[in-house]
């Protein structure tokens, strides 16, 4: 038992040495946890911004131009006037996502108290924008019209005031959400690639075979790979959490970063085990590359880090409970955004550990078999 532990440690140090001395891998790790997080956090948007709107103004009235003037940045790009005959082309070419049709006689109807009608055409293929953008557009129109009617700049068509306050992220800054999502995604990608590639590199260089002729058990070899590669990723992720996420992106962390580190460590053992498992299925580097891509794309996209689980079909939600990433995303959001403690989050930790153990068991089962099958 002591000997096994010593072997695991010693082999792990060798592993660390190998990773640290590989400039390409280190560069990949550094890039993933810095540039890749900042660009996504700053560049990708989840809110309505700069939406392109075109207006067909058949009325030409003061009210119409008042409406048009109300579409303002940052929500909308300045509106662009088009003729009625251009509407189809504008939408078909994707030059505008929204088209507001103001019929002639619109102002007259409104002022006379007759029900006036406006049409808002929405390119509903632009899902990211269409739903929320249309809601904003309607609100803008309703507000402007009621103010015009009431001749007051504060009038509202609604008899209640709905005050929305966001907990954990009061201004709904996307960068906060995206930086953490990206952090978890990169944990997944790097852990799978590092651990899997480490096994395949050893297999291709014949060193794995060599290890197996020595007084070592496959378990010791695999365990060394898990902790060493996991540790590299964990340290990089923590550095990134403090320097990039908290420092550069200025994201406040609600809960304890050390609880996060603890969960991340368990997660990394699970995903490195998954990486080793994949390396026993795909036994050459190119095959491993081809196999790992769909695996981490699925883990990253379907684990609730991007789209909430409840928007997915029920069967998929259930299936994704088998993904360690699902639990890690929930755990990370819980700790870092909501400040939840271990009392709330322990089932997630347990699930990650169980999935990791299953992957490791599978990997060990196949380990020896795939060493020999060089044919």
């Amino acid at each position, binding site marked *: 038992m002591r000997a096994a532990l010593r072997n695991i440690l*010693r082999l792990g140090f*060798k592993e660390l*040495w190998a990773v640290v001395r*590989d400039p390409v891998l280190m560069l990949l790790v550094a890039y993933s946890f810095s540039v890749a997080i900042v660009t996504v956090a700053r560049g990708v948007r989840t809110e*309505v911004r700069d939406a392109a709107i075109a207006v067909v103004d058949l009325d030409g009235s003061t009210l119409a131009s008042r409406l048009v003037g109300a579409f303002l940045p940052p929500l909308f*790009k300045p509106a662009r006037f088009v003729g009625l005959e251009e509407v189809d082309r504008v939408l078909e070419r*994707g030059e505008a*996502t929204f088209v507001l049709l103001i019929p002639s006689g619109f102002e007259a109807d*409104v002022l006379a108290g007759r029900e*006036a*009608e406006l049409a808002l*055409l*929405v*390119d*509903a*293929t*632009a*899902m990211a*924008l269409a*739903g929320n953008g249309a*809601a904003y557009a309607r*609100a803008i*129109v*309703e507000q402007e019209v009621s103010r015009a*009617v009431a001749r007051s700049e504060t009038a509202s*068509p*609604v*008899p*209640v*005031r*709905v*005050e*929305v*306050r966001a*907990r954990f992220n009061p201004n*709904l*800054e*996307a960068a906060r*959400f995206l930086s953490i999502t990206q952090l978890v995604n990169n944990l997944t990608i790097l852990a799978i690639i590092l651990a899997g590639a480490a096994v395949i590199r050893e297999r291709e260089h*014949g*060193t794995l*075979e*060599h290890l197996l*002729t*020595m*007084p070592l058990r496959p378990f010791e070899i695999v365990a060394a790979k898990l902790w060493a590669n996991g540790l590299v990723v964990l340290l990089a992720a923590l550095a990134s959490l403090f320097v990039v996420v908290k420092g550069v992106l200025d994201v406040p962390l609600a809960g304890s970063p050390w609880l996060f580190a603890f969960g991340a460590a368990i997660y990394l053992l699970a995903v490195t085990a998954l990486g080793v498992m994949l390396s026993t299925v*795909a036994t050459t580097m*190119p095959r491993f590359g*081809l*196999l790992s891509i769909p695996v981490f*794309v699925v883990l990253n*996209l*379907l684990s609730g880090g991007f789209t*909430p689980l409840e928007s997915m079909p029920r069967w998929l939600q259930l299936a994704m409970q088998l993904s360690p990433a699902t639990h890690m995303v929930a755990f990370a*959001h*819980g700790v870092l955004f*909501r400040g*939840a403690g271990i009392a709330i989050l322990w089932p997630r930790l347990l699930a990650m550990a169980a999935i990791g153990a299953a992957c490791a068991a599978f990997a060990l089962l196949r380990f020896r078999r795939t060493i*020999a099958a060089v*044919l």
Partner: protein
Amino acid sequence: MAGKAELAVRCEGLVHAYGRIHALAGVDLALPKGALIGFVGPDGAGKSTLLALIAGAKRRQRGTLEVLGLDPARSRDRRELARRVAYMPQGLGKNLYPTLSIAENLFFFAALYGLSGRRAAARVDALARALGLFPFMDRPVRALSGGMKQKLALACALVHDPELLVLDEPTTGVDPLARRRFFALLEAIRATRPELTILFATAYMAEAERFARVVAIDSGRVIGDGPPEELCRRTKTQSLDQAFIALLPAERRRGHRPLVQKSPPPSGEIVIEARDLTKRFGSFTAVDRVSFAIARGEIFGFLGSNGCGKTTTMKMLVGLLEPSAGEAFVLGSRAGADTLAARRRLGYMSQSFSLYEELTVRQNLELHAAIYGFTGEEARHRVADQLARFGLIAVAERRPRELPLGVRQRLQLAVATLHDPEILILDEPTSGVDPIARDELWGFLLELARRRGVTIFLSTHFMDEAERCDRISLMHAGRVLAVGAPQAIAREHGGGVLEQAFASLLANEAEEPQQTIGLAFAGEPPPDDIARGFSFSRLFAFARREGRELLRDPIRLLFALLGPIVLLLAMGFGISFDVENLRFAVLDQDQSAESREVLRALEGSPYFERYAELARFDDGDRLLTQGAIAFFVAIPPGFGRDLLAGRRPQLAVWLDGANTTRAETARAYVIAALETSFAQANPAKTLQSVPVRIETRLQYNQEFRSTAAIPPGVMMMQLVMIPAMLAALAVVREKELGSIVNLFTTPATRLEFLIGKQIPYIVTAFISFLSLIGIVVWVFDNSIRGDVGALALGALLFVTATTAFGLVVSSFVQSQIAAIFATAILCMIPTVNFSGMLYPVATLDTISRTIGESFPALYFQRIVTGVINKGLGWEALWSDFVVLLAFALLFWMAAVLLVPDQER
């Protein structure tokens, strides 16, 4: 000296460097036509570089080189040379295609030289019969023995009736019988074609004694040149082996003493025993009922060609492989996977270098000391001992890759003996090592066996090494043909010569008949008018071959067709902007009819699902923290009263802001639901209701489903990444495996090569498109509203452009794994972020938009949503088709310019 016109090769001051290492350091040679000339020297001496330069596979760096009076550096001359020179690169069958059959390989090469139809069939037939390959025409190259691969490679080289044949170590790793037959074949060919010049590199000095002229090369220089007898005479030695050592510069020879064999050990207890040991891989029997017994202190040699089962047998002994049948005993215990204790008494050295390149010599020894449980003083002691004993002190802090092969093997031996094993199992420890280092290594082995009583079990294919063993076993095709003392076997089967004994034992076994030689040049030679420019038949030869290879690689094919489907399903379901079943809670502190209206408004909406009614504010906060609800609504006391009084009371909505995408959507929907509900009811009647109705028309996706909007874009994405990746891999694989040399040394042009290889991937990607469109329609429940023909044509153009992009990527990456990740990284951002797939192009700023417009994805995205969602056809989209075509042409041009037509 022959006149210039009769020279096959002339070079002066030829220098070739890889980085700082000089492979050739000034070579001057003049080789006459019609001769059989041998090149000898250890691995890394520069033989291969010289031959590759002559064959036109490598680009000349410095010095002059003339081949058949032409200059391989000039592209016009090289195309001429491609028809007159044939090249067999090092590594058995390296330029062959392992999954293709003998016939398919031959026909492919015939097609490259412009032979087709009946003429090709006649030529292939004649060559195959002449070389004894005819009975095995349908066997894949992968399943051939070394000797057969060698003959097939020769047949492929002879397909165009060359004037100069460049053979780089064609006999390495081939059994003695096959080697003899190969020489007989060459002689027969030379008899019918006396003007044929053959350059032949070999690592076996003994073999070189057959040549009329030998060029000895060491460290990039010619150290001897002349007939073998003359070299021996000049150096006053008996054999070429000794002559070579004598020719080496003085400092390399220092310390070398010829080995003196000591007396054999007393025979004693049996320490290794195999009984009917058998290993099968699928239907292939690698080791077939092998039995032997080895006594303590014995040096036991395992002799045989590559692939005869030596390595597999050894792996079973050390426990790396489980035998399929039979059993083996090592030191009295059964060999197997779980014999940790036995492994401590065993040292193993595998065929290729298997220590850590990233660790120094000392660190490698230290790691092994630790694994064998040595700690502290003892570990230090042992490491220091081994460094001293194996002469590694000077290189202790260097990394193995910087060391010559001989020293690396010494290190491996030092590692394998660090723990004082009783048995050493060594798999070809001297393969590729120069004669001096070989003698040195044998010095260590003899010392271990004779002084320390270590039992040594080693494999080799050098006959002179076999003669140094106490006993040997000859192995062929998984079976042991003979066991005994080398002298006894030589006497019994070979008239006193071991090689002869091996050959005659093999002759009884040989599968292929002794070839009918002399027929080699029957059949029609290829046309003289081989197309010099672009040739469609060569292009289709590449396409056919690539297609066949793809069909025979199930994992790649699976990835090509199943990968996109998995990803489309994952993303189609996973990327969703739909809001459904958002769970909420209500804190109603008013409990009036009006406050219950709030609850009704939310419950009536399909977007929300009530989770709980709250008693206290803190409960809501707790549920948010747990992630149990998306939001809760707090209704203040007096809400109903204020509402009726027209005082516009406030409703507070607390959102979970963790996931901002979801929070944004929830906010918009909650406000809309509440405001609409109250505006319509307007119980106060104090405000004049707004007399405007906004009719929102959702175009192209009336139900506002994510599954209508997202999957078409994801389909577009799948037609970028995976096809580009596969096309890039196809070229890089040839770089890695070495068959790209066929592009360098045959008349094939880069355009034929690239487009030919691309075609199967265009076809695969198009099939993939059909499967994806099927999923978009049936699984995600969409209908194609526009012109299906336009969509299909667009897809065809698009995958042509994206696979061509893969070809461009392949031009600057060297390994397959780099090809995969480089393609992924390069495609990802313009495809996902700037193509309009997720965010409308109209919202992009100028820079992002420019990036998007510089990649084909944006245009096909327009075609995809245009046809599927918006119901468009040709008229609206024609400009996008034109752009896609332009991209394909542009990428082809770039790939042709960037892919090298010679190795550097």
